[in-house]
Each structure stands twice: as C-alpha cells, then as structure tokens.
C-alpha cells in the first residue's frame, strides 16, 4: 500500500519535538478527526532555520510532517507558505489515493505556524485557505467533515 520511501520516512521521522524558544507554532486537526499536527518554527529574518513537529495520526500524517519540516528548513516564510501538499507528496514518491488528503495537514500546520509568527511580529494574518475541523481535512473520519 505505502511505498518504501513513505515507510522509511514514517519509521524514522526527522525533526520530531518542540522548539523551546519558537517563533511560531501551528496546530491543526483534532482527536476526533484522528489527526493532530503541531509544527514549531524558528525563524531568522524571513528564513526558517529550524522546524519541528509533533503529530498524532496515521503513517501519512507522520511521514508528511517529517518531510514537510525537512523541506521548509532554510526556506523563506513566503516560499514555505506556498509549499503545497502536492510538493510533499512528490518528494515522498506517491501516496495511496485515499491517503493523499492526509498530507494536506502538513501544509495547513505550516501556514498556521507562519500566521502565528506573523501575529507575534504584529503582522496581519494571511488567509490560510484551509477548511473546517480545526484546519485539518479529516485524515481520519471527522464527524464535522461528514
């Protein structure tokens, strides 16, 4: 079902943890949905110099958290904002069709973290474009998502 690459990323995820003096935290999902993703950013100027995550969820959610944090390290905030779940899936190789939407969680968490960073800097929030259920897209089945 999963490719070797996804399994490898999931079984040995990178960037697990928190950042004590974080510059922005984003959390999406809910236990009801079956997925919660929390991303911590350390930002210097406009550049992400560290990214960490904690995820409750399926293998896809964990693998894409790990991959997404790896990808945004070193990116500018605006590039990181533009990271799409397709980008993450591309680097992961491929995902089972039914699982593709779970990777959206990572994008949503990154945007939430960037917005948190903007709030701390006194900037206005950007429209995240994410939907119901705390920003998650129901990787598990979310009653609020039907």
């Amino acid at each position, binding site marked *: 079902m999963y490719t070797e690459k996804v399994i490898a990323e*999931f079984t040995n995820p990178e960037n*697990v943890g928190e950042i004590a003096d974080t510059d922005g935290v984003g959390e999406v999902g809910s236990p009801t949905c079956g*997925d919660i993703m929390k991303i911590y950013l350390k930002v210097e100027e406009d550049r992400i110099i560290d990214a960490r995550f*904690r995820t*409750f*969820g*399926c293998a896809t959610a964990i693998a894409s958290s790990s991959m997404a944090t790896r990808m945004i390290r070193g990116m500018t905030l605006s590039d990181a904002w533009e990271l799409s779940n397709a980008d993450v899936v591309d680097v992961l190789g491929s995902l089972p069709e039914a699982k593709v939407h779970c990777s959206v969680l990572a994008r949503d968490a990154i945007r939430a973290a960037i917005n948190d960073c903007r709030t701390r800097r006194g900037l206005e929030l950007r429209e995240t474009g994410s939907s119901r259920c705390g920003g998650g897209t129901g990787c598990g*089945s979310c009653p609020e998502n039907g």
Partner: protein
Amino acid sequence: MNDLNRHPVYMDHAATTFMKPEVMAAMAPYFSRYFGNPSSLYRFACGSRNGVDGARRQVAAAIGANPEEVFFAAGGSEADNWAVKGAALANRERGDHIVTSAIEHHAVLHTCGWLEKQGFSVTYLPVDEFGRVDPGDVEEAITDATILVSVMTANNEIGTIQPVAAIAKVAHDHGVPFHTDAVQAIGAVPIDVERMGIDLLSLSGHKFYGPKGTGALYIRRGTRIETLIHGGGQERGRRAGTENVPGIVGLGRAIELATADIEVHNRRIAAMRDRLVRGVLGSIQDTRLNGHPTERLPNNANFSFRYVEGESILLLLDARGICASTGSACSSGSSEPSHVLLATGLSHEEAHGSLRLTLGDANTEEDVDYVLEVLPDVIGRLRRISPLTPVRARIPEVD
C-alpha cells in the same frame, strides 16, 4: 529494524486464516478429477455430488443442525445479506421492523441500511462498555411489526460473546425469528442451533482455516426467507449458481477440524492470549483492554493505547514483522474510527488508538514473547511523536 527475514508473526486470525493442509488435501481431488457439475445426471457427477453432500453433513454436525437446513453460500457477507434481506422481504406483509445491534459487522449493518431505504425500520441496540447487548433491550425494542432479530454470536473487533440463547428466547417469545452472525464464533464458541434457539446462522470458511469465498447459511426448517441469488435449482432451489465444489468440500473439512477439539484448542489459545494481555497491560501505561473481561473469544485481544493512532501502530509493527489490525480489516485505506469501539463508549481518540491482536493455530509462545518485546517500543516511539502525550508518558524523551 526490519525483522521480516524472520517469518512474520501473524496475529490477525480474525481477518483471515491460512488454510490447513488437511483442508487442501480434502479439496484437491475436486478441482480437476471430480470436476463434474453436481446437477448433472451421469454417474461421473456423483463424485462432486457426494463431496457436497458430505460437506453439508459436516457443517450440520458442527452446529447441531440437519443437513437439509444447511445452504452453501460464497462467504459470510453473502450469508448475512441473504439472512437479513431474505427474512425481511419474505415477511414484508407481516411487518417492517428489524432489531439488531450497533456493533454488528458491516455485512449486517449496511444490509439493514439498504433495507431502511426500502422502507423498513431498524432498531440498532446499544451495548454496554464491554460490548454486550442486553436481552432486556431486545425485549423493549420488539414491536408488533418486528419480523427479525439479528445479533451476532461474537464480535469481530473486540471479541465479545453475546448472550445469544437469551436473546433468541426473547425473540421467540414474541414470535420473531432470530438470526445470528456466527462468522467469528465457529471453532471458538460451541454452537448448537437447537439449544440456542437459532433460526438463521451465517458462517464463513476462511475464518476457521477453510477456503476463502465459502460460507453457509443455516435455515431452520419452516423459517420464511426469500432467495438472494436467483437462477438454477441448486441448493434445493434456494441459492442459484453452480456449486463451488472444492470450496464446499474444504469448508466441510475445516469446520469438522475446527469444532472437533474446540475446548482443548480454546484453552491453549486463551492461555497465550491471557499472557499477551497481562504483558501488554503491565508494560504499557495508559492502555485499556477493550471488550469483555471473560465473555470474549479465546483468541481476541483488543487494546486502546492513548495518544497514538492505530494505523501508525500497525505499520510500525509491520516493519518489525508483526501482522495485526486496527478496527476491522474491511475497508482498506479508510481510517474511520471503529463503530464498535465508539458503541462501547470510547472517545474518538481512544477508538483511533486501537490495536487488535487475534491469535491462531500457528502462533507460539515465542510469538507472544516477540510481540511483548516489540510493542512497548512501538507505542513508546509513537507517543514520543504525539502532541497528545503527557510528559510523564513520554519517557525517554530522546528518540
């Protein structure tokens, strides 16, 4: 970390079983040697006809039925569909109400859902925290319009065994026929359709070391039921289609083997399962055993590990060569929380973090040891990743 060179430790016998060599041996002659159509008149077809007749006697003997009351089908799902739709449609002019439980297999639940669209009404009885249906609730649910009570013998996820005889009695006291999905129970719970008052019973070969794609429906003589698959006159006109002769022969042999030494077998399996449960609960905190403490299938262990999600547990176990399941195995790719666990009152989070380990004939004490060695590590890793884990449960912090 990949232990797959070690042959996998298979602890998913509730999903399906390997086929026993004795079963294969029984089936083998019927593929290309006694290949005749049992309906054919010539003597050559006696070989297959006898095979089918023999299997019918074996199934009947295993559940205390008459051979004329056993009808072969292509699996548990077909048998469930047949029983529930067949009884409902055949009794339409008598009433339109069905009583079942909230924790039935989807083969019953979705069939009931379909019947609701056809104008029937269905009561889905709640269960207690252990997953048991209260016969008193059945009593209360039955109305003048009730035409079927369907409650499974044992649950496929949490293994809880239902008070089937008591429920059947309530149904019969109101003149309502009783169906039970015994797919998980065959070979684990002694079944006697007479003593238990069962009118319709579904079973499936691949759950007790028989062939996949085989099953049977027991229909007590006189029970009103419509045909599900129309056509030729096979199965005394009640289930059309050329008989799957090798499969039927295999089913017969498998049920004979599975019910022969049911107590000895259960004791051995239950002892291993109990050690597994004790070991898991003793080594992993914030864990609960789902299902009933005693009234449960001997091979079933179902845990909820807080703060982590089931699919992740499964895949980390898989990476270590352990085959297990979360929820039911029916809908690949979906990670819906189990309707069974939710019905027992678990929160979504707990329901998501469930793991089902079901033991079987090939398992050894070493398998149990291995799972007890691997599982705490797997849960620990995932808890260290999870944002829900309280710090006290995240030791050691470093990965």
